[in-house]
């Protein structure tokens, strides 16, 4: 009995301008039929390159330098285009991180799936069959991935489907060739918590039902644990630890694995609850920001409007961290942008330090912006690639103060110290920095003018879990040091619970729940909040441990 996938001492180099990069070093792993294998690692650890190489879609400038990789007796390292056609998509198939970019926006879903079926049949040397017949097969595939009303979905286009539905469609396409191995490359990272839980359940169920061998890749060890029975931890192109998921989770051998595990925000622990509860009892000096009946309607053409935010009112107290939680489309980012008047509200008032922001003239607004600043979701695009880090951090000083160049340089150095980055970084450019470093730069930029209120719009959702933990710790530290007030927006409940004193749950532009974070988490009033918390708990560490024990 041979193993279905056998990788021994596999190494891969990529030649770049800066020299040779050892992307994969001595990778060894063996998969038996029906195995569910997880690969955990930060971005840049080589996990995606590894699975793409298994599928023959690795980086084109990569060089195989040693070791073997064989699938069911076929040597994958020296396969030609013709040989790949019999393996890729047919016997090994893959689902990707961002389902939107992997679907053709101009072609109906049904046609896309039927094309995949036709390609597989052609590769197998069979007759491709009529399109009507292929559409029937496609419908049955969609039923397999729990899509209600498959006939309707077949006629739709990618933009008409939600993120979760798109990922299901991709899974159904991956299953079209009845593969032996299904590779899932961060399939849930781009999805909301509730949807993420559903997709993970689906992958689990399909693996059982179709006896699939699954390779599941994620930077989130919690998500991996819900699917995999065995896992490998990768770092800088090497597997640092490999074994039973339960062993890895409960008794990590490598210090890096421990680091990764510690980074996951706790979901259910009660000690933390006590801590945050105490912090919130600190005396407050009245609201710094109060929002009254705020609404925003967007024109979507044809005289139609969409209510992004509907009559929302809440207060933010001085020196507190207020979280706004909700799925994508709940209007939370719109609120953040309206507070800073990056978007004009349709209705309602925003009272900041006893003055109505919505009535400000442009000049008054400029002055007020010194006191409230925003940190954006994606640090990779929030920094101008043509400005050095020093220029980026100095920009708010240049715009709002008239201090000399020398003083500005000094202040930039100070700010770099505050965000714990080396001062030499001011001569670097954004593309040379990692995601976590870039987000620190963004934070330095936003605190340059000593603001009182910081609006953080999903500041960690574009970052790896391990980096996220460091940024969150830092944000907490910064808040108490500088007496800041945070309006913290996130879709991640664990993060909100770890950071926020009070929180607001939003759904479809309305506030569903508003109260102390702990109260909401312990006894949610609304079914929606409950559902959110349940799905969040599913990928938490504790749940993973339990699932591993049960399995």
């Amino acid at each position: 009995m041979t193993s279905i996938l056998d990788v021994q001492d596999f190494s891969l180099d990529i030649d770049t301008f800066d020299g040779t990069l050892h992307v994969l070093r001595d990778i060894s792993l063996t998969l038996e039929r029906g195995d569910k294998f997880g690969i955990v690692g930060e971005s840049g650890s080589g996990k995606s390159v590894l699975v793409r190489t298994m599928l023959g879609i690795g980086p084109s400038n990569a060089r195989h330098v040693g070791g073997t990789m064989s699938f069911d007796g076929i040597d994958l390292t020296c396969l030609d285009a013709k040989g790949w056609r019999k393996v890729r998509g047919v016997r090994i198939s893959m689902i990707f991180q961002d389902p939107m970019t992997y679907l053709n926006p101009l072609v109906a879903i049904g046609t896309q799936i039927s094309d995949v079926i036709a390609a597989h049949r052609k590769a197998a040397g069979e007759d491709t069959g009529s399109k009507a017949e292929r559409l029937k097969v496609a419908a049955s595939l969609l039923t397999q991935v729990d899509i209600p009303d498959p006939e309707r979905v077949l006629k739709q286009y990618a933009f008409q489907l939600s993120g979760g539905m798109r990922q299901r469609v991709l899974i159904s396409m991956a299953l079209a060739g009845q593969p032996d191995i299904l590779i899932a490359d961060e399939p849930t990272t781009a999805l909301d918590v509730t949807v993420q839980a559903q997709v993970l359940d689906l992958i689990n169920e399909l693996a059982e039902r179709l006896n699939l061998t699954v390779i599941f890749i994620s930077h989130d060890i919690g998500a991996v644990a819900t699917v995999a029975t065995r896992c490998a931890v990768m770092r800088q192109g090497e597997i640092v630890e490999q074994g039973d998921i339960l062993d890895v989770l409960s008794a990590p051998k490598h210090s890096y694995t421990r680091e990764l595990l510690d980074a996951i925000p706790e979901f259910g622990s009660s000690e933390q609850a006590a801590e945050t509860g105490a912090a919130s009892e600190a005396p407050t000096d009245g609201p710094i920001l109060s929002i009254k009946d705020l609404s925003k309607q967007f024109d979507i053409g044809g005289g139609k409007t969409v209510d992004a935010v509907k009559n929302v009112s809440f207060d933010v107290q001085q020196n507190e961290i207020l979280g706004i939680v909700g799925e994508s489309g709940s209007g939370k980012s719109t609120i953040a942008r309206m507070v800073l008047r990056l978007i004009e509200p349709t209705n309602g008032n925003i009272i900041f330090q006893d003055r109505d922001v919505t009535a400000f003239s442009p000049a008054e607004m400029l002055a007020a912006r010194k006191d409230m600043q925003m940190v954006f979701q994606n640090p990779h695009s929030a920094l101008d690639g043509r400005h050095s880090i020093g220029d980026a951090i100095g920009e708010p000083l240049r715009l709002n103060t008239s201090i000399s160049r020398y003083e500005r340089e000094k202040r930039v150095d100070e700010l770099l110290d505050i965000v714990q980055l080396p001062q030499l970084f001011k001569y670097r450019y954004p593309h040379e920095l990692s995601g976590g470093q870039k987000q620190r730069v963004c934070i330095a930029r936003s605190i340059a003018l000593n603001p009182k209120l910081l609006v953080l719009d999903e500041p960690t959702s574009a970052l790896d879990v391990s980096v996220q933990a460091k940024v969150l710790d830092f944000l907490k530290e910064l808040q108490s040091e500088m007496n800041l007030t945070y309006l913290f927006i996130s879709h991640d409940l664990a993060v909100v619970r770890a950071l926020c004193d009070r929180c607001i749950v939003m759904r479809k532009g309305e506030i569903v729940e508003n109260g102390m974070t702990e109260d909401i988490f312990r006894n949610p009033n609304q079914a929606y909040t409950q559902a959110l918390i349940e799905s969040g708990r599913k990928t938490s560490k504790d749940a993973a441990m339990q699932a591993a024990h049960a399995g």
Partner: protein
Amino acid sequence: MSQQDTSLERPGFRERHASQIRMWRLYIHTLRKSFTSMLGLVIVAFFLFLAAFGPQIAPYPEDAAGAIHMSQRLMPPSAEHWFGTDEMGADILSRIIVGARISLWIGLLITGIAALIGVPLGIIAGYRGGWTRAVIMRLTDLFLSVPGLVLALAIVASLGPGITNCVIALALVWWPGYVRLVEAKTLSVKEELFVESARSIGAKTPWILWHHILPNCLSPVIVKISLDIGMAILAAASLGFIGLGARPPSPEWGAMISVARSYMPDWWWYSFFPGMAIFLTVLGFNLLGDGLRDIFDPRSRDR
């Protein structure tokens, strides 16, 4: 002690500019990998050298100014006159070398003026949108819908022939391309998060345009300028050829061919060598432009 302090405060040049040094090394590396880009660079550098030192290196510099040697009219290429002589007995090689300055100057001036008009209009159209954009873009379309050279012809005809008028006319028909290019680029750049981020720290529109939008639009503009210099030289030579550009005895290449036309085909060298000069410069700028495009390709930035 104090020595150490200053070194701490101000790191060395190499450290401060490590990013730029690496960037330039990467540019050179990319350029050197491609034979055609290097060829373009060599050709352009060669003609730039001719333009800079033409009068010093030309064997008979006085011939370029219109000296007449009736004894040596229309002599074929020889050891004394590598490219032969023209109907006035002037050395064609010298005239071509000295003419390089005129041709390159024309090319640079036309594309430079066109970019100076086109880039700001493009940025304003793309950033402002609405009415402003409609007006600017329709005006651009109007210019683009008339064949460029024909329009330039009409302008020169009304201004009167001459090198200055020729440059003005060509610059006037050249800017719409830049508006198109920059407007499209601005539309995508202004949606970037860093523009919103700049607004949130209190930047006003002019600041955003100058510090964020313009630098991010510049690389395609540089590529287009490089490609256009060749085309502009060709267009100016065409106007010279039909007698609307530089007037003989100015050693402008197009004007030289224009006169040489009547000496074809028996005295072939008279039109052949100026033609080759035009051909080579246009080729050189085109190859260089392609090379620059590879360099500025965003896909090569992350390496």
